[in-house]
């Protein structure tokens, strides 16, 4: 994860409060209907099933451009489309991990399906002990501040996240398909 800079002043006022007050889209860690259409993705799904994640009631929460409570913020988030020039497609989504939520180690399916993707993560909450993001086999992201922007070194990075603190962990993800 390559640090780009801090953009806290560009985070729309009220965005984080809105995410904390609304549930968002409940997203289970096991999504067989989504993990299809590519050999690598289906192989990953098999491993997830073998490990037993299909039997766990574990989730995380997402907010997208289509989420009703996000509508007042859409205009003020247009700046995230300017991270990269000359892309075919771009989308952002916000991920909230409440206490105990998780995503096991994985590569995002949309990244596997596309030949070239550039990814960014904008932290919306300060790091605290118990906020976990592991990547690149043995790296652990810590000591960041709300507004810190990171560019992924490799969009196909195997990564996972969880929250074992009692305070929600929120970040905004952006993918550019070239």
């Amino acid at each position, binding site marked *: 994860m390559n640090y780009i800079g801090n953009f806290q002043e560009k985070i729309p006022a009220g965005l984080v409060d809105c995410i904390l007050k609304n549930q968002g889209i409940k997203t289970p*860690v096991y999504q067989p209907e989504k993990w299809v259409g590519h050999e690598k993705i289906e192989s990953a799904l098999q491993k997830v099933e073998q490990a037993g994640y299909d039997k766990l009631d574990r989730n995380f929460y997402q907010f997208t451009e289509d989420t009703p409570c996000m509508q007042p913020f859409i205009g003020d988030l247009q700046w995230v489309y300017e991270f990269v020039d000359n892309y075919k497609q771009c989308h952002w989504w916000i991920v909230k991990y*409440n206490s105990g939520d998780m995503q096991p180690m994985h590569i995002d399916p949309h990244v596997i399906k596309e030949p070239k993707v550039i990814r960014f993560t904008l932290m919306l909450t300060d790091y605290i002990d118990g906020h976990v993001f592991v990547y690149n086999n043995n790296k652990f992201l810590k000591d960041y501040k709300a507004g810190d922007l990171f560019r992924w070194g490799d969009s196909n990075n195997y990564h996972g996240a969880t929250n074992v603190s009692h305070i929600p962990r929120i970040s905004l993800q952006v993918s550019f398909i070239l």
Partner: protein
Amino acid sequence: MKYIGNCKEWIKQEWLDRILSTTGDICPIHQPENQIGDHKKQIELYKNFVTAGWQEKDFVVNMYTQGISKDILDLDITIPPLIPVEGKNYHWWFVKMNPGQVTHWHFDPHTVKHTTAVRYWMAIQDYEPGHVFIWENGGFLDDYKAGDIYSFDFADLYHSVLNLSMIPKVSFQMTVHEFGDEVIKPKFYNLNS
């Protein structure tokens, strides 16, 4: 976490096979009868997690405790040679975290009650991406090898262990303390029984 050394030769494959093929004692992290009553920090910590929605049955570890856990009672498990126990009392336990198991941020209550406690952690397997051991102020243990032993910076260090990988995570835990500083837990929590 301070690295002590490696004693991989101490680990018997039979022990690991037994732990991987059995359930052990399913112990919740939230153990109110053991964790409240004498320490304000513990009370506040658990109030926060209960308020945040943690439930006892959802957040457990599979434990294999010295002299207690039936699944390992017949095994001749000795003490790792690098852990100094001469003239001291001790107790040990293995922890298995299946994929998806997480513990919330905590410290081990017995290490507060043992005023002379020294806590040790030992890897039983090589590091696997998604096998996470973290401790306060951003500590993260990576790239360890089976047999690596660490001592906690101090006994009641805040920490958490979790498994986001596709294979179980097994570690060995030990607390060493002076004689006369024994602690008897009011209750042994086992959701199996």
